[in-house]
C-alpha cells in the first residue's frame, strides 16, 4: 500500500537524517536525539509551549529579535508559573519607532541577554516538544537563523494558531476576516490583551489554542496529527 508521509513523519525523517550529518553542531546533538511525538500522540501527553518573539521587522536577514516569551500548557491548562520572558541585546542600534511599538526601550535592551545564548537556552527547553505560535514563520525562521541551523530543520512540532483559525473559518466563507491575534480573540469574545510584549502574546496565543482544540475535538481526546495538518 502506498502511503504519503504526513508532515510529522517527514519531520521525524529529517531529524534522523540530521543525526548523520557531520555538520550538525555537537551542542545540539542531544536535542536532535530526542524522538518526536507522532500523529497519534494524545495532546495531553505532549510537552506544549506557547512562544512569541518581538522583532524589529519580518526580514530574517536584517531584523533582530528584541525579546522572547512563552509558557507551558499542561493537561489542557495554561500554567502561568511556567512563564518566561527575556530581553535580547541587539547586534545593531534599534530605531526609536520600533522600541515604541514594543514598549521596550533601547536602554533595557543594552542590558539584555546575548541572543545566541538565549536562543540556545530556548531550544534546549523546547526539545522534543510541541511549539505553538501565532504565524509560525517568524519564530521558526528567526530561531533557525540565530541558531545557524539554516541547512537543517528544527526538530520541533510547530503548530500555528493563525493557520488553524483559517482552517476553522474556511467553511464560513467570510472573506477579508481579521486574522491578527487581537482580531481573532475579539471575534471569540476573549478579553483584549493590550500589552504588546512577547509573554502577553504567548499567553494570548495559548488561550486561543485551547479554544481551537475544543472546536476541533469537542469531547474527543485530542491528538497531535490533526493539529499539525491544520497548521500547514
Amino acid at each position: 500500500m502506498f502511503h504519503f508521509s504526513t508532515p510529522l513523519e517527514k519531520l521525524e525523517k529529517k531529524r534522523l537524517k540530521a543525526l548523520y550529518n557531520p555538520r550538525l553542531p555537537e551542542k545540539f546533538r542531544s536535542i536532535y536525539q530526542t524522538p518526536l511525538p507522532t500523529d497519534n500522540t494524545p495532546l495531553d501527553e505532549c510537552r506544549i509551549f506557547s512562544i512569541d518573539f518581538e522583532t524589529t521587522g519580518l526580514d530574517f536577514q536584517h531584523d533582530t529579535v528584541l525579546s522572547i516569551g512563552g509558557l507551558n500548557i499542561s493537561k489542557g491548562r495554561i500554567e502561568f508559573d511556567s512563564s518566561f520572558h527575556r530581553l535580547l541585546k541587539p547586534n545593531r542600534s534599534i530605531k526609536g519607532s520600533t522600541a515604541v511599538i514594543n514598549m521596550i526601550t533601547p536602554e533595557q535592551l543594552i542590558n539584555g541577554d546575548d541572543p545566541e545564548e538565549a536562543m540556545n537556552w530556548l531550544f534546549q527547553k523546547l526539545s522534543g516538544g510541541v511549539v505553538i505560535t501565532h504565524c509560525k514563520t517568524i519564530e521558526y525562521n528567526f530561531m533557525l537563523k540565530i541558531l545557524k541551523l539554516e541547512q537543517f530543520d528544527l526538530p520541533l512540532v510547530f503548530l500555528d494558531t493563525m493557520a488553524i483559525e483559517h482552517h476553522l473559518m474556511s467553511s464560513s466563507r467570510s472573506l477579508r476576516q481579521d486574522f491578527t491575534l487581537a482580531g481573532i480573540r475579539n471575534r471569540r469574545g476573549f478579553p483584549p490583551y493590550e500589552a504588546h510584549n512577547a509573554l502577553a502574546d504567548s499567553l494570548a496565543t495559548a488561550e486561543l489554542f485551547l479554544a481551537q482544540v475544543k472546536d476541533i475535538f469537542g469531547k474527543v481526546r485530542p491528538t497531535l496529527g490533526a493539529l499539525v495538518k491544520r497548521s500547514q
Partner: protein
Amino acid sequence: MDQSLLPNIYDFIAHTYPFSQLNTLEQDAVATAIKISYHSVDDELNDENLTGAGLYMIRAGIVEEINKSDNSLRARLSVGDSFGYTQIDKEGESDYKVIFVENTLLYFIPKQVLQFLLLKNQAVGNYFNSKEWVRLSSSHQYIDEQTQSTGLSSTLQNEKTVGQTCERDVTTVEDGSSIVHAAQVIDSSDTEVALVTKERDIVGIVSKSDISHAVATGISLNDPVSSIMSPEVVKIDADKTLISALELMIMHNVKCLPVLNNGILTGILTTHNLMQNTQLQSVYLLQEINITHSADKLVSLSKQHAEIFRTLVESNIQPHTIQRVMSRIADSFTTQLLRIGEDLYGKPPFPYAWIAAGSLARNELQFLSDQDNAMILQQEPNEEEALYFQKLASFVCQSLEQCGYPLCNGNYMASNERWRVSYSRWTEYFNEWTTNTDKEAILNSQVFLDIRYIFGDQKLVTRLLEHLRNTIRENKRFLASLCTASCSVLPPLGTFRQFVLTRDGKNNAFLNIKKQAINLIVELGRLYGLSAGCSSSDTYQRLEAAANTKGLLKKDEFRELAEAYTFLNGVRCNHQVTSIKEKTEMSNNIDPKKLSQFERNHLRDAFRIIARHQAGAKFRFTSGGMGLF
C-alpha cells in the same frame, strides 16, 4: 515577575474582590499561581474538579451553578465572578455542578495558594468562608456595630466613646433640696441641668427651664426639687459609642445623658459635646419639630431630611439605625401635626389613637417610604364626630405629604374612611382577614399586621395588638395563606450577566431591591414574628423572637437572615444617597450596571439565603409541610 509584562492578569486580580484587598506581593503570588483553562458550551465541571480543588474566576463567558439535589439553579455567574470556594474542604461528590452557558475562559487558583492567602489576610478569609452570612457580615463595618474586631474599627472615624467625650464636671443636688437651692447651684456652675441624687443613685434631673416653668406657674420655690424634676433619667455607659448616645437622645428626645462607669456616675454628655458631630442635626431637627406650631414651618423644616439621611449614610451608620432615626423624625412630624390639627379643629369628641402601619410601624422607614397610617376611634362616631376626624386626618395626611412623605398608592391612610374606624370595626376587620383569606384580605392584613402607636390613646393600640396576636398565633390556615402570599415573589437567583429581571417604563432592566429582596425578608419576619407571638413589628426583633421560640428558627438561621437584611438595606441606602448626590430621581430600582462586582457577589449570597428560607417557611407553614404526615 515583572507586573508590566502581563498587565491584564495583574489588573484583573487587582480589581477583583477580594484579591483587591491584598498587597501587591500577595497579588503577585496569586497571579503567578493562576492556571488558565477554556471551556465550551457543552462542558461541565463536577465532583473532583470542584471538591478540594480551588477557586475558579471567570475571565470571559458565563457559567451556571446547578444544585445536584434538585437540578435547580444555584447561581448564574459572569466575568469577575468566582466559584468553587464552598467546595474546597470537601471530598468526592460536589454539592453543585458547573455548566457553561457560553464559551468560557477560567482562571484557576489552586487550593494551596488560596489557603496561604486565607491565613495571611482576614478580609479574604471571611470572603471565602463557606457560610453566606459570614461573607455578608464581612462586607461592611458599620461604626455602631458592637464588633470586637480591632484592626478596621480603629481606622474609622467616630470611634470615640462616650467616656472620652463627656464632661467630667457634673452638677448635682441632693434629693430633698429645695427648688431655690437647685436654682442657685445651676446658676453658679453655669450649666443647663443638675442631676438629683439620693446617696449614689440618680433619681431625677432638673433643668433651667423646669425652674423657670416653676416660677411662671407660681410653685413655691421652697418646695422640694423632686416636685419639678423629671424622675425618668436616661443614662448611658461610658464605653458606648457616640452614635448610640445620639440614638438614645433621639429616641427619648433629651439633650443630655448622665454617663455611668460600672454603675457609678462619672460625667454628663450633652448635645453641646456632640457639636462637632454632624449627625447632631437630626437631634436638633427633632427638637425643633417638637416646638413648632405651624404646619408651614414644619414643611420648611422637612427640607433638612435629605441632608440628614445623606449624612447618616455617609457616616457609615448601620442602615437599621438610620431607619430608626428616620422613623423617629416621621413620628415627630406626625405627632406635632396632630397637635396642630387639634388646635385647629378643637379637641376630639372622644379618645382616638393614630397609628403608623407598614415600614414606619416597623421602625424601618426609608427615605422614599410613603405614608401608611390609620386611626382607631374609641367608639362609633356620629355624623358630626365623623366629620371632625375626617378633617383632622385629611389635614395630617396632606401636611405629611408636603413634609416629604408621599401619599400612599394603595390609599392605606387615615384620610381614607375605611381606615378611620372604631376599635370594634378594627377587630372585625382582622377577624375577616384572618378567616376569609382571599387575595385582598391578605394584602390588607400585610399592611396592618405591622402597626405601632404614634399619638392619642395608647390603650386602644395595645388592646388591638393583643387581640391580633391571640387571633393569629394559632390560626394555622391564615399563617399558611400569609406564607403563600409572602413567598410568591422569589429573589432573582437566575441572574443573567447581572440582574435582567424587571423592566421600568423606559424598558431598562433593573433590580428592584425593595420588592425583589428586602420585602421578602420583611415578610418572612412578619410570618415568624406572628407565630412566635412577638409584640414588636421590627423585623430583626421578630426574627430574634422566632429564634428564641423553640422549633421556629435556629440561631444560625436568624443570624443569616439578619445579615442578609442588613446588607440589602445597606445597598439600598447607598444607592439612594447616590441619587441624592447626582440629583437623579430616587427609586428602589437599581441599574445592574451600577452595582460593583463586590455588591453583586454579596447580593447573590443574600438572595440564596432568602430563597432557602422561603422554602423553609413554605415547608413549615403551608400544606407543603403537612403533606408529609
